C-alpha cells in the first residue's frame, strides 16, 4: 500500500476490526506503508483504547512520542486532523487477530498533556514515564508521573527538537554540527 491511501476512508479495509471500531467513533483511519493507523483526538484516546481492548487488542506493545516541530509540513495526516507539535504514538496488538494497530494522538505545545492509558493497559506505565521524561508530555492521572531515565532534578526534555545535542566546541570549526 502506498502514500495515496494515506487519507483514504474507513471502508478501504472492511475486514479490519480496528477500522470498524474506529468508524463507530468517527476516528479517521490511514495507512502508512501498509500499517493501519488510527487518529483519535486526545479526548477520544481512552475510549478508543478501551473499545479496542475489548475487541481483542489485549496488549499495548509500545507507547512513544514524536516532536514534529521541525517537520510540520512533511507528515501525512488525514484532512480532519489538525497537526500539532507533539504526537503520542501507541502501538497495540491483538494476539487473537495477529494484527497491530497504531494510534497517533496530536498533543499541542501549549498544553502538553495527554490522558493516561494506564487504566486500560497497565503496561504503559514505564513508557508514559519515558515520554514524560524525554518529551515533557504529562499524562493525566498517571500514578507515578516522574522522570525515569534522566535524574529527577534534570532540566529540560532531551528528545525535544529544540534541545541541543550537546557538543564540545572545536577550534577552527565554527560551523554547528553534532560532532
Amino acid at each position, binding site marked *: 500500500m502506498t*502514500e495515496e491511501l494515506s487519507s483514504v476512508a474507513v471502508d478501504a479495509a472492511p475486514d479490519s476490526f480496528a477500522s470498524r471500531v474506529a468508524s463507530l467513533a468517527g476516528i479517521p483511519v490511514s495507512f502508512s*506503508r501498509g*500499517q493501519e493507523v488510527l487518529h483519535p483526538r486526545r479526548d477520544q484516546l481512552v475510549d478508543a483504547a478501551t473499545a479496542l481492548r475489548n475487541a481483542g487488542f489485549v496488549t499495548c506493545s509500545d507507547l512513544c512520542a*514524536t516532536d514534529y516541530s521541525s517537520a510540520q509540513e*512533511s*507528515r501525512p495526516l488525514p484532512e480532519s486532523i489538525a497537526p500539532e507539535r507533539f504526537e503520542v504514538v501507541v502501538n497495540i496488538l491483538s494476539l487473537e487477530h495477529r494484527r497491530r494497530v497504531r494510534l497517533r494522538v496530536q498533543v499541542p505545545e501549549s498544553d502538553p498533556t495527554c490522558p493516561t492509558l494506564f487504566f486500560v493497559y497497565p503496561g*504503559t506505565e*514505564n513508557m508514559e514515564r519515558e515520554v514524560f521524561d524525554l518529551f515533557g508530555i504529562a499524562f493525566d492521572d498517571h500514578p507515578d508521573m516522574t522522570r525515569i*531515565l534522566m535524574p529527577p532534578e534534570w532540566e529540560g526534555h532531551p528528545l525535544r527538537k529544540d534541545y541541543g*545535542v550537546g557538543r564540545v566546541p572545536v577550534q577552527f570549526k565554527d560551523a554547528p554540527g553534532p560532532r
Partner: protein
Amino acid sequence: MTPETAVTDPAAIEKVIEEEATTDPAAEFAPEALTDPMQVLIEQGGVLRLPEDATADPNLSDSSFGDGERMIINLGPQHPSTHGVLRMMLELEGETVLRSKPIIGYLHTGMEKTAEELTYVQGATNVTRMDYLSPLANELCFSLAVEALLEVEMPARATWIRMLMAELGRINSHVTWAATNGMDLASTTMMIFGFRERDMLLSFFEKTTGVRMNHNYIRPGGVAADLPDGWQDDVLAIVDTIESRVDDYDQLLTGQPIFRERTEGVGIISAELALAMSATGPILRASGVPWDLRRSMPYLAYEKVDFDVIVGTIGDTFDRYAVRLNEIRESIRIVRQVVEKMPAGDYRVQDAKVTPPPRARIDESMEALIHHFKLFTRGIEPPEGEVYVAVESPRGELGCYLVSDGSNKPYRLHVRAPSFVNLQSVPALLRGGLIADAVAILSSVDPVLGEVDR
C-alpha cells in the same frame, strides 16, 4: 505528593504507605490469580510509588520505619546479581518483599537522540549497542524498519543469512543468560559452561563480521559481507557441540533438587497479568501464551522453517528457565535447516541508492564511484512516512518505530526495548516472595540494562 515533601517529611511517606498498603493480610499475600490483575496493579500498586531518593534520608532506612518491621532497602545498583546497573527499591516486611520499584537510567546515554544525528547508513552502529547481548537482533530490527520505509525487497540469500545470524544470536544470548543465571543461583560451574559456549559463537561472529560484539553486520539493504568459506562446517560444529552441552545443563541444573527448590513456584505471573503488563518473550511464553513473533507474525523466512514455540505452564522462575533452555534447542533446529536450505545469490540488494557497489567496481566505473561517494556522504533518503517493525529478540518483542521526513537521517527513532517493558513485571513477580528469591526472579527476567536505559 511532591518529592520535596516526601524527603523532608518521613511522616508523610509513612502515611502514604499506610494508605496504599493493604490492611487485610490475607489479601496481601493471596496468589495473584485469585485477585483481579487490574486490581492488584492499580489499587494495591504492586509498585512502590516513592521518589527515587526517598531512602537517602537516614530516618527512613532503619528498621524503625513504618510499623517497626517494614523497611525499604536497595538492591543494587552495585550488586553482582542485578546484571548491570539496575537498582531495586524493595519494601520488606521481615524477609517478605511487599512492593518494589525498579529504578533505571544509570546507563542512559541518549541513543535515540544520537540516532537523529546519524544517517541511516551509520544508524546500525548505534542501535547495535543497545542490547549488547544480542546485537544482531537490534541491527535486524533497525534494518527491517529502514527497508519498510524504502519498500525494497531483500534477496533471498540476505534474508537467510540474517535468519542464521539472528538464531545464532539467540543461542548466544540464551547461553549467556544460563551462565549468569547459574551464577546468581550459586552454580559457578554453570557460569563457566555458559561462557565457554558463548565464546565459540563469538569466534564465529568474529570470523563472519570482523568483531565479537556490536557487529554492524546486518545493515539496511542486506548484510555487510557474505558468509566466510566453510561456514557450514563451522556452524554445524558449533550447534552440534552446544546441543550436547545443553544436555549437560539439563543434568547439572534441571534435575538438581537445590535448583528446583529455588525456582519452582517462585515469582509466578499469570498470563492475563503478563499481557496486561505488556510482557513479551520468555516471560509471556512461560505463563502459557504461545506468542512468538517468528510464528505469529512471521518476518524474514521463518514460515519456511520448522520449529516449535516453547511455552510453560504456570509462569514461575523454573518455567522461564525451561523455556529458554528449550529455545536453544529450537534455534539449533532452525540453524540446521538454514544450513541445508541456504539459497545462492546476492547477500545485499543491488540498488546503488541503498548499498555501496563492490570495491572492485569503484576502480573501473565512474558511476560506481559516484554512487559510493553519494552513499557515504549523503546516505539513504527514504520517502516521508512512519513505520513500526518488530522482531522476536531473545528477550521478547524488539520494536523499532522510525519516522522519516525525507532526509538522510531518521527524524525519530524509537526502540521498543523488551527489557525496558519486561522490567515492569518485576514488582508483580517479587510481590509476596522472599528477598532471597528476588535474586532468582530478577535473573529469570533477563534484563539487559544497555537496552533498558538506551
